């Protein structure tokens, strides 16, 4: 068990995570890694309101999360780690290289981003960051919900994902 998913999703905690993944995985803990959320009681309360009471939520900065990754991976319960951006995931893996898989779950439209999948839009810099992670040995696939086919990063970047 431990962390079954290291997910990039700009919505962080939401329906796909709590219900879509949470129900079939029997989710028991969430590690939400975000420097801003970790520093804001209001943000934490907002996200905690969306989580069933039997699911534990850890709100951690990138640095604090990196020091606890081994413990989270060793946790006997099923868990999900969430970040809201490619940049945060890259910083986290730089500090915690034990993370070897990344799930692209939702990066939505913003200025400068190009659509790669229905739910993945990336800037050239984000694409470069993902390629660099993959070249370092991290397995990166896009998959919004458990029933969907995991799409390898190369197919995502080549626009071959939704067909």
């Amino acid at each position: 068990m431990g962390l079954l998913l290291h997910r990039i999703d700009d919505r962080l905690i939401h329906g796909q995570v709590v219900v879509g993944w949470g129900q079939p995985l029997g989710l028991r803990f969430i590690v939400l890694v975000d420097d801003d959320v970790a520093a804001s009681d209001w943000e934490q309360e907002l996200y905690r309101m969306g989580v069933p009471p039997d699911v534990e939520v850890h709100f951690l900065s990138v640095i604090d999360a990196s020091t606890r990754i081994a413990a989270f991976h060793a946790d006997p319960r099923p868990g999900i780690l969430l970040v809201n951006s490619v940049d945060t995931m890259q910083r986290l893996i730089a500090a915690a290289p034990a993370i070897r898989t990344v799930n692209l779950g939702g990066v939505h439209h913003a200025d400068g981003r190009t659509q790669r999948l229905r739910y993945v839009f990336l800037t050239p810099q984000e694409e470069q960051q993902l390629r660099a992670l993959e070249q370092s040995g991290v397995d990166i696939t896009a998959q919004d919900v458990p029933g969907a086919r995991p799409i390898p990063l190369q197919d995502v970047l080549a626009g071959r994902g939704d067909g």
Partner: protein
Amino acid sequence: MTDDAIVVAVVAGHGDYAVGMLSAVEQITGRGSAFVPVSNRGKSPAELEAELAAQLDATGARVIFTDLPAGSCTMAARRLQRARPDVVLVTGANLAVLMEYLFAAISPLGTPVGGLAHTAALARAAADKARDTLSVSGG
């Protein structure tokens, strides 16, 4: 403002949830246009929050109904509430609560009724009634 032109609330949810719910309201009451649908499909959190705000501004409605308590529409609505404390949020909405609220929120004269406290009380009462419509039988 005529009765038909009044928008009492925004309904927001995953996929076609809102459009589907309003289709049912229209079929049952003929007043589906009293709600405005919003979908989270393909939207970033910021885009979703902006659309909710725009719909409230455009319609004058101050109530948002959402589907899942943990859904992205609910999260966007809660963020909106921080800047706009006059917004009332009802999560876990079903067809019954929409219709209860619809008929409570429109006066017999066809005008919206009450201020914020009254609106919130109406929404709470509608939610209480609708909660009772969930039942299980058989087995």
